[in-house]
């Protein structure tokens, strides 16, 4: 049996594979064999290191040497120098960008890791159904510290100093929100956790509730202490059964330990939490609509002011915070406002969780400091675009956000930068698009979503969005003209200016940002009646090339609508008035005779 003393880890992430990391692995294996080390050294491929910029990466265990930008021919040097002679290969070591000194041990080069986990600190680490594991990781210590050592105002000041802003999307300062509720005078106040996560492709809140429910419970209790509320409510969508179950388990355990209920930690403070289920309406993520839904009324927004902090649930002062916002609170208390505010940019502090989705290699849940660039997120952590295709745009902020193009890749991500770039932070969904995506269709997709989710209360949103959708539909069918583009833009502005709540005020954003960034693509649809990405079916035309067609009849036999005619062994023909552009003929043809235009 082999008893390996050393391991060579070769990055097998897509980015590194594209730069020949498989060849590196093979060369290393061959060299290891040449030197008769096969029983002592094992070579393995790993997943992505999240540092594709410096790939391909080879890491040596147990000494943690981290080689970057390795080429296949470097395999000889690594084996001869490092493995045989025990000397590190200097020129392949990662150099600290600050002082250009090589870093020999990757344990000291954590900075290459672009992710910092604060809200996700316990996700994937503790058993979410065991309160003891949470307590072992300093759980409920923040609550204990607040109750026994600090006044509510002191805690609020700490949160204010941390610079934390609401992670639900709006970016309102958390400390200020708490302060307003704490100053409102009422016989009863409420703390509400907004777990109505509705953006397509977003799953940050679900993951936190499923992986670390106690952090949210603890933060709600802290908020209760600060604002003078004894009742907490979690508004969670019924589509999240596992999150609900884990939250329930966590609440029961916290009650058994006396961390929820009467006289918590032997102080006069009482606090308890109940759950409220939403039916999954997007608009109920808006705080006034959410409150109405909890009151048993229709989930429709109302005009602000009055803000919920003054008059919310049942007319009482109510603090509404997003899941991710709450999950970071215990860290701010335990580690201090200074720790939190040392991370991030001038106006956006701390970290943000993003759900990476779309045409990206490492689809996943990530947490990065504010100020990380889109390029780092997409190309390093995300491992780049699937199938080696070209990056086209990234959609942030869900249906209320916009599409950001190449030119924004180096923009540091924070609340204000994203807004000036024509998008928004939103709750943290990030959908990456490649060259095959049609931006008009993308805008139409998001609009269809808001159209479904509009509550119908105000006219601009109810009817305006419908008209926008019709116009987009027309354009994708090749029936639009250039005037439509002007009308589209005008109507977008009217809806933005006149809608009642955030849903309507932001619903035209995907259209406006694609109009701004991809005007050519809109023009191609209305002027030339062409879809450059080949996505809009009505604009696509399938034809058979007479020279290549052998008359094998395969397309004829597979066409579901009988649009193809032709004799055996002679060229076939597609009748475009019947064709439904399903593409079966294109997929089936063995002679490459069917072309798409």
């Amino acid at each position: 049996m082999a008893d390996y003393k050393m391991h060579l880890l070769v990055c097998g992430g897509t980015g590194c594979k594209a730069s020949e990391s498989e060849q590196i692995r093979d060369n290393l294996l061959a060299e290891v064999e040449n030197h008769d080390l096969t029983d002592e050294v094992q070579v393995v491929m790993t997943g992505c290191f999240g540092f594709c910029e410096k790939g391909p990466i080879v890491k040596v265990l147990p000494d943690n040497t981290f080689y970057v930008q390795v080429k296949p021919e470097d395999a000889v040097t690594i084996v001869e120098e490092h493995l045989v002679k025990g000397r590190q290969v200097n020129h392949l070591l990662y150099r600290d960008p600050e002082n250009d000194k090589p870093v020999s041990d990757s344990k000291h080069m954590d900075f290459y890791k672009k992710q910092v986990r604060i809200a996700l600190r316990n996700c994937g680490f503790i058993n979410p159904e065991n309160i003891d594991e949470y307590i072992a990781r300093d759980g409920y210590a923040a609550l204990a510290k607040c109750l026994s050592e600090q006044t509510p105002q002191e805690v609020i000041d700490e949160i204010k100093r941390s610079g934390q802003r609401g992670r639900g999307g709006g970016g309102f300062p958390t400390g200020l929100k708490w302060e307003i509720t704490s100053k409102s005078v009422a016989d009863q106040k409420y703390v509400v956790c907004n777990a109505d996560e509705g953006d397509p492709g977003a799953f940050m809140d679900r993951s936190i509730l499923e992986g670390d429910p106690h952090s949210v419970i603890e933060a709600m209790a802290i908020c209760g202490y600060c604002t003078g509320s004894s009742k907490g409510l979690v508004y969670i969508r019924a589509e999240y059964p596992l999150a609900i179950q884990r939250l329930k388990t966590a609440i029961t355990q916290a009650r058994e330990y006396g961390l929820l209920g009467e006289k918590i930690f032997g102080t006069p403070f009482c606090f308890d939490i109940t759950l409220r289920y939403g039916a999954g309406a997007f608009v109920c993520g808006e705080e006034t609509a959410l409150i109405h839904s909890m009151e048993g009324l229709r989930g429709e927004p109302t005009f602000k002011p009055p803000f919920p902090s003054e008059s919310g649930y049942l007319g009482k002062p109510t603090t509404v915070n997003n899941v991710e916002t709450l999950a970071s609170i215990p860290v701010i208390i335990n580690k201090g406002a200074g720790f939190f505010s040392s991370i991030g940019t001038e106006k956006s502090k701390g970290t943000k969780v993003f759900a990476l989705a779309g045409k990206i290699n490492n689809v996943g849940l990530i947490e990065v400091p504010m100020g990380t660039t889109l390029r780092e997120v997409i190309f390093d952590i995300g491992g780049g675009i699937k199938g080696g295709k070209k990056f086209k745009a990234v959609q942030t902020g869900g249906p209320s956000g916009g599409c950001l193009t190449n030119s924004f890749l180096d923009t540091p991500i924070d609340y204000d930068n994203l807004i000036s770039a024509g998008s928004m932070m939103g709750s943290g969904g990030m959908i990456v698009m490649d060259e095959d995506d049609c931006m008009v269709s993308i805008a139409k997709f998001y609009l269809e979503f808001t159209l479904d989710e509009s509550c119908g209360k105000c006219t601009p949103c109810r009817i305006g969005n419908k008209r926008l959708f019709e116009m987009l539909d027309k354009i994708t069918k090749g029936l639009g003209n250039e005037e439509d583009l002007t009308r589209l833009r005008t109507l977008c502005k009217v809806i933005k200016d006149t809608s009642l709540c955030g849903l309507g005020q932001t619903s035209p954003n995907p259209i406006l940002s694609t109009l701004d960034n991809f005007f050519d693509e809109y023009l191609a649809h209305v002027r030339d009646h062409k879809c450059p990405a080949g996505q809009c079916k009505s604009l696509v035309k399938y034809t058979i090339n007479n020279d290549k067609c052998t008359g094998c009849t395969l397309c004829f036999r597979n066409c579901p609508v009988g649009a193809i005619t032709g004799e055996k062994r002679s060229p076939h023909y597609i009748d475009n008035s019947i064709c439904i552009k399903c593409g079966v003929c294109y997929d089936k043809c063995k002679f490459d005779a069917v072309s798409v235009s």
Partner: protein
Amino acid sequence: MNKIKSLDDLRQLREGMQAKIKLRESGDNAENIVRIKVAMSTCGIASGAKEIMTYLMDELEQHSIEAVVSQTGCMGYCFAEPTIEVTLPGKDPIVFGDVDKYRAAEIIEKYIIHNELVDGILPANYRTIDN
């Protein structure tokens, strides 16, 4: 369950828990105990994490390997679900992605029993806030 009535109670419980975990890591039997965490969020479960967890428990028992298999939340590697984290006694934890039954068997056979690595481990690409 005893109620926690003061900060001291909480500290005691925390230290007790940490000691328990430490004992699990360095106690008498430590050289034999393998710890496995299975990422069990909705997405992990949808990709088959539950079956893998049961399979791991059954297989480990068959091989008479003393192990603690527990569930945890999302590790963030959605592109490689189901994911599991294996900690061998005295070693750093290692995360394996795309764990189907075949790979689970391979991990037990190669990594847990013979201490060989297998392809497709996922390097930790994030910093934690501990320390």
